[in-house]
């Protein structure tokens, strides 16, 4: 059993006749992993499976070597932030965190210290003694996050954690995710804000209709999408000259000069060969380049190519 990864081995989950996820084989390494897919694609089902809140109809799941049907072991290492806003009515933010830390078996002094630490991490220290019921949407989102991280878990499963956060809080939260990822923790995030997924993720898992459509680092996933040539934007002084040389290549399917006539948008079936050619042209013909950047090597484009809709999944 792989003790450093979250492993799904041929996992299927059906809700009666309705498919949740089917035939999922994954090995998720530490770092920030984003689950991306439209509504009903199976993101929350995957999260519930790895936290043991539902059991697979078929196959097995293990989280760092722990089967999710052992909550006493599992939730020592896992923190889960659900998408539901559900809190005991009468609790203040501090009491909410404190009481759930007691459920972890921590002593009151330790629970107190950690509750305050988690509140400080999500910027809610000043609102610690206000009732959670009186919190704004963004504050409730942050207290849920604090609830997930308060016991310092090794694996964080966060269902749409950026929803309702203002831009400042988003930036801080993303920085936290990256910090946790760098520490060697698993941070599993579902999000429908694709440009933020790009910033956050070490790897992505794309889901559609209960199936894993693609997984891995986004560049790797993009290069596998062979029926959509890769778009590369080259900024240079003589785009027309470059275009004429590119049209001689069989892997280049399109080269279009940009409106400002200082750039060339290229679509190629073989990015590696294109970059080699570009190097050669620079050396041989003295082509002066300002910049070279892939245009569609991001989650949004891959999402569009593979799942067939614009970003905006949830």
């Amino acid at each position: 059993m792989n003790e450093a990864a979250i492993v799904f081995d041929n996992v299927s989950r059906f809700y009666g006749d309705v498919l949740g996820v089917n035939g999922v084989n994954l090995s998720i390494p530490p770092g920030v992993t984003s689950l991306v897919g439209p509504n009903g694609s199976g993101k929350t089902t995957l999260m519930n499976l790895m936290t043991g809140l539902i059991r697979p109809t078929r196959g097995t799941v293990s989280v760092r070597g722990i089967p999710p049907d052992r909550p006493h072991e599992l939730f020592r290492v896992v923190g889960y932030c659900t998408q539901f806003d559900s809190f005991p009515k009468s609790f203040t933010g501090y009491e909410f965190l404190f009481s759930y830390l007691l459920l972890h078996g921590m002593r009151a002094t330790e629970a107190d210290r950690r509750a305050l630490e988690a509140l400080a991490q999500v910027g809610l220290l000043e609102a610690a003694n206000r009732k959670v019921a009186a919190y704004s949407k963004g504050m409730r989102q942050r207290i849920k996050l604090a609830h997930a991280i308060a016991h310092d878990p090794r694996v964080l499963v966060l269902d749409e954690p950026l929803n309702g956060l203002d831009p400042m809080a988003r930036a801080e939260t993303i920085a936290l995710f990256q910090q946790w990822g760098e520490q060697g923790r698993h941070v599993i995030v579902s999000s429908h804000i694709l440009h933020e997924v790009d910033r956050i993720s070490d790897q992505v898992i794309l889901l559609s209709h209960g199936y894993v459509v693609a997984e891995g680092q986004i560049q790797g996933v993009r290069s596998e999408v062979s029926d959509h040539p890769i778009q590369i934007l080259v900024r240079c002084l003589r785009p027309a000259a470059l275009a004429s040389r590119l049209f001689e290549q069989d892997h280049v399917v399109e080269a279009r000069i940009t409106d400002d006539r200082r750039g060339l948008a290229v679509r190629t079936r073989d990015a590696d060969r294109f970059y080699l050619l570009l190097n050669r042209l620079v050396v041989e013909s003295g082509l002066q380049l300002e910049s070279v950047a892939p245009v569609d090597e991001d989650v949004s484009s891959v999402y569009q190519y593979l799942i067939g809709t614009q970003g905006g999944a949830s």
Partner: protein
Amino acid sequence: MAVYKKTYRPYDGHLTPSWSRFLVVARYAYEDLRRSRFLSFFFFASFLYPLGCAFTIYLRYNLGVLDAFGLAPPKSFAIEAPFYLTFLGFQSMLAFFLNAFIGPGLVAPDLANNALPLYLSRPFSRAEYVLGKMSVLAILLSLMTWVPGLALFALQGYLAGFQWTMSNLRIPTALFAGSWIWILILSLLSLAMSAWVKWKPVAGALLFGIFFVASGFGAAINGVLKTKWGHLMNVSHLIGSVWVSLFEEPLKRGAGAVFFRVAFGEEIPIWCCWASLICLCLFCLYLLDRKIRGVEVIR
């Protein structure tokens, strides 16, 4: 795969014993209950009857007090098993009402608001969650039933002497066991009903329905079919019969605890009573198992 700094260190400090963690759930439930003036008043008012009983016991062994007030002592003033059976019946009825007010509010809001993942994404199982919620009722109802009952017995034992205490040991045993059976049934029923309907007022109404409407239905069956088996639907009758057997009271007309009387000639075999109550508990456990889940699957 990236090279990570691996600076994470998990918590390895002291942990409280896992068996005691369900009490965390109870602790916060009591704080909520304390805020309700009506429930606090009702709870404290439920000790008036035990106080009256204590006074009666005191009088029984201090008849001279009656003389001092110019009252004639009664010719027969025995305080034995029927006295305690009546006490148990009265307190159990009060416990039923308190349970009907409190019980449904323990689980229904958690389920209605999808709050169960908050509990179940901790090192905390579904069984511990149910146990934690049950403990809220168990502690409160114990304080209303067997705790004052045993205190009364201790008082009488003190006043009547060692001989009387030893020859009546079945009374505290029956008080303790009878109360716990009632507490178990009440708390399982209220948790199961509230988990099923997820709506506090409806769950409370269902509890009343199970005790009063079902017993009326049972009585109708008895009347129409000229049988006594309709009592199987009457939880009060079932529990009353079990109590009578625990107190080893010979059944006579109108025997049993107040509110839980077993009519003479309509007794059903005691094993049937036990079997019915066990079935009721198993049904409640089945409902709880179906409904208390981290994620409810709606098909």
